[in-house]
């Protein structure tokens, strides 16, 4: 029983790491731009596809094993670095003045377009590239075999992302500017902050994180049409539960969801699917603005 619980916790941590990597970019974007980006799932999927393509190419080169992991990061930077600015400048920047619902729907439209583009580019056959998992090998816990990728690398990257983001947002000037815009957009712009630049930067950064989430998932999962769709809803739940733009909240929520899910798989598999929503409803019942959210000022 104790061992079982311990195993459930290990699984939960690994899953939480994946959930966090998907949701953190969305949280960041929402915090600054106040846009709930439905296309986030598409960035996740495209990041995964590009990582698999790059990884397959890297496997043919002389440096094959050494390139396996860097290829994941490269894919994320490529996808985020290209798609992020292009979409922000060409499309999103035109609708910042419009209603929230229009902003949300624009990303819904992007999601529909990107979904078909993925299909036309990579086809419908499941694609995968598991070199990164094989490079890192296996670990035994008791008599249960885990992959090191799942047990060490995923949680490690998630933790590094969290700490890196906290450092970036608290200690660097750009980061503080982003926080300032998250906290009070009007005051920040009144103080001379170039909101456009902050938006561009944040959206690009958030896109890189989404693509990184996809790239990190690609060695363990198969990329199929619709793989992004499932991610969207899950990361939405994380963002709302965490509170707007709350990075630490996203981590805590991801942990709750990850652990809740794995405990459910062990003890009540029927409930696994609804765990994220139950957690969300429960949290919002107690804290109407999310775990780390604060009520906005009531303005007359």
């Amino acid at each position, binding site marked *: 029983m104790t061992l079982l619980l311990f195993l459930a916790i290990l699984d939960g941590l690994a899953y939480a790491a994946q959930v966090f990597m998907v949701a953190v970019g969305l949280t960041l974007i929402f915090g600054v731009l106040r846009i709930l980006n439905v296309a986030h799932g598409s960035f996740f999927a495209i990041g995964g596809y590009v990582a698999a393509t790059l990884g397959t190419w890297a496997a043919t080169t002389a440096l094959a094993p050494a390139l396996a992991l860097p290829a994941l990061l490269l894919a994320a930077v490529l996808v985020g670095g290209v798609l992020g600015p292009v979409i922000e400048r060409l499309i999103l920047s035109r609708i910042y003045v*419009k209603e929230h619902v229009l902003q949300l729907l*624009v990303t*819904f439209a992007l999601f529909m*377009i990107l979904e078909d583009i993925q299909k036309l580019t990579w086809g419908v056959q499941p694609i995968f590239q598991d070199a990164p998992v094989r490079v890192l090998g296996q670990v035994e816990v008791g008599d249960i075999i885990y992959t090191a990728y799942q047990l060490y690398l995923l949680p490690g990257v998630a933790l590094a992302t969290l700490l890196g983001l906290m450092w970036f947002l608290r200690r660097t000037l750009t980061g503080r500017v982003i926080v300032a815009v998250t906290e009070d957009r009007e005051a920040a712009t009144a103080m001379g902050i170039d909101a456009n630049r902050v938006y561009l930067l944040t959206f690009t950064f958030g896109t890189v994180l989404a693509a990184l989430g996809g790239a990190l998932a690609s060695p363990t999962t198969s990329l199929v049409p619709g793989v992004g769709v499932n991610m969207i809803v899950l990361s939405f739940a994380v963002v709302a539960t965490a509170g707007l733009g709350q990075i630490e909240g996203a981590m805590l929520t991801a942990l709750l969801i990850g652990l809740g899910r794995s405990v459910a798989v062990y003890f009540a598999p029927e409930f696994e699917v*609804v765990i994220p929503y139950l957690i969300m409803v429960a949290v919002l019942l107690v804290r*109407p603005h999310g775990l780390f959210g604060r009520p906005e000022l009531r*303005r*007359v």
Partner: protein
Amino acid sequence: MDRRLALPAFAGAALVIALAASAPWLKFVFTIALAKGLAVTGILLLLRAGQVSFGHALYIAVGAYTVAFTRPHVGEMLLLLPLAAAAGTIVGLAVGLFVARYRDIFFGMLNLAFSMVFYSLLEKLYEYTKGTDGIRVARPTIAGMALERVDYEWTMLIGGIALALALGWLASRFLASPLGQALPAIKTRETRLEFAGISAKRVLLVAYVISAALAGLGGGIIACTTLHVTPLLSYWTHSGELVFIAILGGGGSVLGPYLGAIVYELVRVYAAAAFPDGWQMILGAVLLLIILFAARGLWGIYEDLVLRKGRRA
């Protein structure tokens, strides 16, 4: 009804009937579109208050499954459809009491959460719902008459149009009423509403329950038209579709939802026929263009083209 609405409403109804007469398959497509239009009318009410529900497919599914579950015991459509609307109302009230306290993303996401939990239930309670295989609905009688397929389809379409006209008129009356006028205040400055002694929560709750009832009715019509219901009805992409239609049609008029729904279905059919592998992309592009260049939707375009010109002439 306002003359500026009545004319296009009846002209549109005549056009729909004419098109359906010339191409029989359109009867089905238009009936589905009108049913979705009912649900979108509810979305429109919430949009007036600045709130987006990303979960209204829940009520469509509640209505549709109400019909599917009661059909073995109740054979009459004139009973089934009110039951569907009532089920939507009850579930809408229960959920609404909870979600009406929330705004913006929390409102949207909680709706999404409830619809996804319901979707999971429909799949999980396999014994009762047959999961994704869905439930077959035997064709009900209409006012005691057991109609043949063609007559049944015509009755559904004409009935759908009549409902759309009647409920469209009611919706416009509601929006003009003091309660309806309070909705935009939630969007701009909710606090002012409270200072005026009006409970924003109650206003939103009323709009929410109405929207749930409309979606439940729409779901009932969908079930009576397709005669087969599946859990996919409540999936979140279908909720997104409703918001899509609301924006496509335009929020400026109660006719927008029906206009949007019919155009949406037609674009989807023809896009899928022309590009079977890329119809989603075409729908997305249409939505993108509408938002970027005609944010008031198709109704806005119509107003610009016809009404202004008409006034000048």
